[in-house]
């Protein structure tokens, strides 16, 4: 559904870009003002103009007053369309909502929330990063619309978004209006996981935390509680119970199951390869619902298996200097 637009060819050139007035904001919200909108005819607009010139010459040649009327009406229509195209874009509010973290090399959608601030519906708005055009949508009056704009990633780390281009050709397809928006929003790109799975790394590291899996959860005595139907008889604290009425159950705390340590030292190769390898392990460990910790040169993450732990681990890998 992408339309190749010739003005964008110019936009790609760096020398041109420095002349552009770009809507920059320190926050993740930008409001397009009247001066930030550019407008040029599309190639259809040029075709239309050629047709108008032909009509004008015909009208002069044949002294057709009504020929002049049609020529001037259509010329004026193009003129009015320019105002409408411009008005379709002006005073839009563009906010970056979120970009789900992504593994390097994969594409992600950066979610923009574009809203009308002037109580009028907007039509056929396209949002894209320069290299790829995408999704054209309408926005209702005083409403907002989500624009998932695809973004290709290549390197891990925290990246500032490229410039976003909003454009529209509404209402007549004859004119192309666009605005360029820059904002400081950053996308987190996780390292690209390596394809290799090294099985030894997935074994339990017995050198740390040690011990068998069995009684992990019984390590530290934590207190008593009233006996409840269903409590294991082996945990009843008979001694304590004899001192009082009723039974008490012993409470213990502990990790409950064995932890897997994913260690920087266990990987080989250069830095990026190691990061890549660790990323693969983290993904696999999470997928097999293991409890795992992560040891990096500058950071150690305690074992866990929650979703947030998973993201923490990947973030640490992404941000590793």
């Amino acid at each position, binding site marked *: 559904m992408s*339309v190749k637009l010739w003005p964008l060819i110019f936009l790609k050139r760096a020398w041109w870009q420095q002349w552009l007035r770009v809507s920059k904001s320190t926050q993740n919200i930008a409001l397009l003002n009247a001066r930030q909108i550019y407008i040029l005819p599309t190639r259809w607009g040029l075709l239309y103009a050629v*047709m108008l010139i032909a009509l004008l010459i015909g009208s002069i040649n*044949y002294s057709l007053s009504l*020929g002049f*009327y049609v020529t001037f009406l259509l010329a004026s*229509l193009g003129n009015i369309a320019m105002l409408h195209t411009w008005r379709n874009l002006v005073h839009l509010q563009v906010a970056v909502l979120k970009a789900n973290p992504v593994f390097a090399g994969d594409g992600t959608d950066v979610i923009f929330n574009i809203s009308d601030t002037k109580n009028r519906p907007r039509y056929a708005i396209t949002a894209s990063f320069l290299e790829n055009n995408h999704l054209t949508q309408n926005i209702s*009056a005083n409403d907002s619309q989500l624009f998932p704009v695809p973004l290709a990633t290549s390197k891990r780390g925290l990246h500032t978004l490229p410039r976003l281009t909003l454009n529209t050709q509404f209402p007549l397809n004859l004119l192309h209006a666009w605005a360029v928006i820059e904002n400081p929003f950053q996308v987190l790109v996780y390292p690209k996981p390596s394809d290799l799975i090294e099985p030894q790394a997935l074994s339990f590291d017995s050198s740390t935390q040690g011990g068998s899996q069995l009684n992990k959860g019984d390590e530290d005595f934590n207190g008593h509680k009233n006996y409840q139907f269903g409590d294991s008889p082996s945990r009843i604290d008979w001694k304590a119970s004899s001192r009082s009425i009723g039974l008490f159950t012993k409470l213990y705390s502990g990790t409950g199951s064995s932890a897997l340590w994913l260690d920087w030292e266990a990987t080989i190769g250069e830095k990026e390869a190691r990061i890549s390898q660790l990323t693969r392990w983290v993904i696999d460990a999470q997928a097999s619902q293991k409890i795992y910790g992560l040891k990096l040169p500058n950071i150690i993450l305690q074992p866990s298996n929650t979703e947030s732990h998973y993201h923490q681990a990947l973030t640490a890998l992404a941000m590793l200097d």
Partner: protein
Amino acid sequence: MPHYLNVYQLKWLLLSLAVVLVSHVANLPVWVIAASATFGTWRYCIEKYQWPMPKAWQLLPITLLICIGIIFTFKGFFGRDASLSLLVVMCSLKLLETKTLRDYMLVIVLGYFLVGNLFLFNQTIATFLVSIPPLILLTATLINTSLPTIQSIQFSFKLACQLLLQAVPVMLILFVLFPRIPGPLWGLPQNANNAMSGLGDSLQFGNISNLTKNSAIAFRAQFKGAIPANNQLYWRGPVLWHQKNQNWTMSSAKIGLPLEKLTVQGAPIQYAITLEPHNRLWLLMLDMPTTIPQKAKLTHDYSVLADRPVRTRMRYEATSFNQYQLGTSLSEREKLLSLQINEGENPKTIELVKTWEHLSAADKINAALNLYRQQDFFYTLQPPRLSKNSVDDFLFNTKRGFCEHYATSFVYLMRAASVPARIVTGYQGGEFNPNGNYLIVRQSDAHAWAEVWLQDKGWVRVDPTAAVSPERIEFGISEALSNTDELPIMARKDYPWLKKAYLNWDSVNNGWNQWVLGYDDKKQLDFLKKLTGKGLNLQEMLIWMMAMIVLVMVATSYFLIKQNKTKLNPAQHLYARYLNQLKRTGLEPRSSEAALDFAQRAAAVLPNQKQLIIEIAQRYNALMYSASPKPELLDELAQRIKQLKIKTL
């Protein structure tokens, strides 16, 4: 990747092109219309029944066939009619491979161009009206191509109308101020002017009576002073000197006769004429013209000729005098020419004239006129055919004829009797339109009369038709003919209401012609002079044009950009007023703050108003959110807001 469009957009395209086709229906041969309609239907079926799109090699023979058809119909590709047909049929053929946005846009732009071509054929008010629906539909189609989702029919239709209406002011500015360059820039195609009618440069029996059946307007005349009497309204056209059999022609310019001397007296008659195009040179003038338009030239016999054939409606001003003496002296060459008759024709007439030999020139005229008066000559549009000796046949046999018969036979009589005479063709009379205070002269008012040269008096106008049918000259052609004659309905005297309606319509048409169609380079300069008090040169014109366009655009964009107001219900209205009052104390609700929460906050700031503020919020909430709010709640709300106002003041 090409951008394919949906069925809905295709339907719009087909509909708008169909309307373009309909608007051109009179200008196209039937087979072109049929072919275009077929291609359009075919394209629709492709979409509806999922037929395959035709391949290029399948379309090639069709294209060839069409080209052959065009060549066959129009004898070539050139000329207005052939190019239009070619354009229409190719445009509809293009539909058969229209899939992408690119094709759509091409076809739509072509559609606009075709609408512009409508006016090559005629420029009446009706054509103007016919051009509007296709423009709206094409614009609506264009709107649909720019939308990612299907909107309602009303949406694109309404928007198209809005856009076109908003385009009108700038269009008017351009129309008035865009410098008009006098055309043509290059030669006109041959058949651009073939439909025009008017006086020819020669006279044969049947020429004028044919013209008389045509109710088309020849010209309109607007007088500065009083309109002269009908019998003074001789609109001078070509003067015919040369007789060959039944054919009378003008004197050749090569002969180079000197300009006849004209002396005038009495009051000048000033008038302006809007002449319909007739593709000939003559500019009609009232007998006898003294001032003529620039660039026009006067022939020796006082016909006025334009510098090139009149192909567009033109307006000119002139002055004439109806008391005059023309050509008091007659050169030998002129005498020779004005006495020329073919030898050996019309023996009976020659015989008759011999009996007049002893009479003076003036008496010969009277004798001839008496001939028409006393015998039963009859004025009719349907004269019988005449034999080779036409004058004999007419004078002694049929005795039925039209002005051309009387004029030619009279001049023949005069010449045979050695009185110099010539035929003048033109128009006589005209119809007064009280709505516009001007005179309408139609082709049906075409007339031929005679001028004879008398010693000391010069060329004197003699209208033999007046001898037969004085009504024709006094009151116009409708009075002269019985209703059975084939006069066009507008020239007849019955149906007065129809005539009245027609006169109204004609004054509208005249205004249209004067101000819309006649708005050319000259008129533009005149109009701007009148408007500004002084003339504008080209540069000033352009500056004014740009300035006004910018002004209109700024105004338009202001209206376009200003925020649409949300409609408030009465409770919201009251509440907004209340909030405005509170603003003075610095209290303003956040957009996310509910009424009661805000009231709590406000009450803390204005503790003595607490109860009122809370009550207002409660009532507002009840009005806004309860199932069926009691009507008195609104009054209560209004009352409390009022009370609050008193207290804060």
